[in-house]
């Protein structure tokens, strides 16, 4: 029985008296591609951000690769809140791509990809450069190494951001609506990079998306989020073909109408 690589156990997150994640449980197997769908404000981004340690959770525990992320064992064996050092250690297994790219504007594409391997992993520049070049080639930007973010289209910037995250060799990649800020004709190039990643690597992927077509064809499992919980989940065929819950059906038909 393989242990899940990511496990959320009874995770609760509140902003004031708004409960954004409500006793959430989720297991993700190594190599699994999970798509998260659901209405706006249901807590999808918060889930990914909690896993990236960009948000603290109020209750529950998240473990990554059998190691607690939000907590760490104290000297007496009890689990206490993780300190910055522990979080840095565990966080290294996770990479994230943002809706708004967040590339470093003062660095070229190549420098963006090289920065963290050199500064964080301590690779020497030559090795980091080679790896960065390979990754940029892989996302189809072999010609654009020396372009700065302001000289790239949104789709190209997002592909640099994917390469930048991959350069840290994460085991789990998080994608938060990575195509939402893009014109429809630029979505395709980003999605095909993600598709290729899914096929070529044994990478675990969690993605929040509004692109039902992509989720259906790409993901192993779809989680429908509603009010801070996973309301329903299943294979794409189950969830899209034969949703059990009313809420899920409602959401899917609303999305279908909009598209």
């Amino acid at each position, binding site marked *: 029985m393989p242990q899940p690589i990511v496990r959320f156990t009874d995770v609760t997150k509140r902003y004031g008296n708004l409960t954004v994640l409500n006793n959430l449980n989720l297991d993700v197997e190594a190599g699994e591609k999970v798509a998260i769908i659901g209405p706006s404000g249901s807590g999808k981004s918060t889930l990914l951000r909690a896993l*990236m*340690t*960009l948000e603290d959770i109020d209750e529950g525990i998240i473990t990554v690769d059998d190691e607690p992320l939000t907590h760490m064992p104290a000297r007496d064996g009890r689990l206490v809140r993780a300190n910055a050092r522990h979080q*840095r250690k565990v*966080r*290294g297994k*996770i*990479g*994230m791509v*943002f809706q*708004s*790219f*967040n*590339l*470093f*504007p*003062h*660095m*070229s594409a190549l420098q963006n990809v090289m*920065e*963290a391997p050199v*500064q*964080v992993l301590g690779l020497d520049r030559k090795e980091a450069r080679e790896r960065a070049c390979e990754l940029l080639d892989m996302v189809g930007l072999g010609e654009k190494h020396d*372009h*700065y*973010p*302001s*000289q790239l289209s949104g789709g190209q910037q997002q592909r640099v951001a994917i390469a*930048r*995250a991959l350069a*840290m060799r994460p085991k789990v990649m998080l994608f938060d609506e990575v195509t939402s800020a893009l014109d429809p004709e630029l979505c395709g190039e980003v999605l095909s990079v993600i598709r290729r990643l899914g096929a070529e690597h044994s990478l675990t992927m969690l993605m929040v998306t509004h692109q039902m077509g992509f989720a259906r064809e790409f993901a192993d499992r779809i989680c429908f989020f509603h009010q801070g919980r996973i309301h329903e989940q299943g294979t794409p065929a189950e969830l899209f073909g034969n949703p059990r819950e009313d809420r899920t059906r409602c959401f899917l038909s609303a999305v279908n109408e909009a598209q």
Partner: protein
Amino acid sequence: MTVQVTFWGSLLAIVSAIVAALGRLSSVPALRWLAITYIEVFRGTSLLVQLFWLYFVLPMPPFNIEMSAFAVAILGLGLHIGAYGAEVMRGAIRSVAKGQYEACQALNMSPFKRFYRIVLPQALLAAIPPGTNLLIELLKNTSLVSLITLSDLAFRARQLDQATFMTLEIFALTLLLYFLLAQVINLGMRMLERRLSRGRMQGGLS
């Protein structure tokens, strides 16, 4: 003398502005208060009195700290302008987008690397226009150091004037020299701006 005081004073001003701005933004209350105290004391009192304190009061008991007039000039001007610069830097650091911090965290960068590799280059760019003003201000304030026995440009001009009575020529030349020095600062900052904004769209931040 004027050139040297301006140069070293500017360096000190920039460093103290960055350090004080960081202290001001720190989550540690003690550091925050230390920075606020520094900024308010040096901004809220006259530069001349600060120079007098450093030069005439500190060597006396109970302080017994004696410094050369040159060191006092650099320290006084640097800390004084640095206090103004701290507020400029604070605004500039806060203008760096939140997404930049999140990207750094997702790449597992340490807070130190995040600051000096990612945040500082972007903040410096935003701080350059107001920063240039402050450094020119520093240059002009160097004329005060003659009051702690340093012979700067303005002081020399007055000496020459008294010796030769060529008042118009001497002060015209003095004016020109200050103006030229200010242009040097301007040019230096422009070059720095050009370097920091490589690849940026004009007028765009992040």
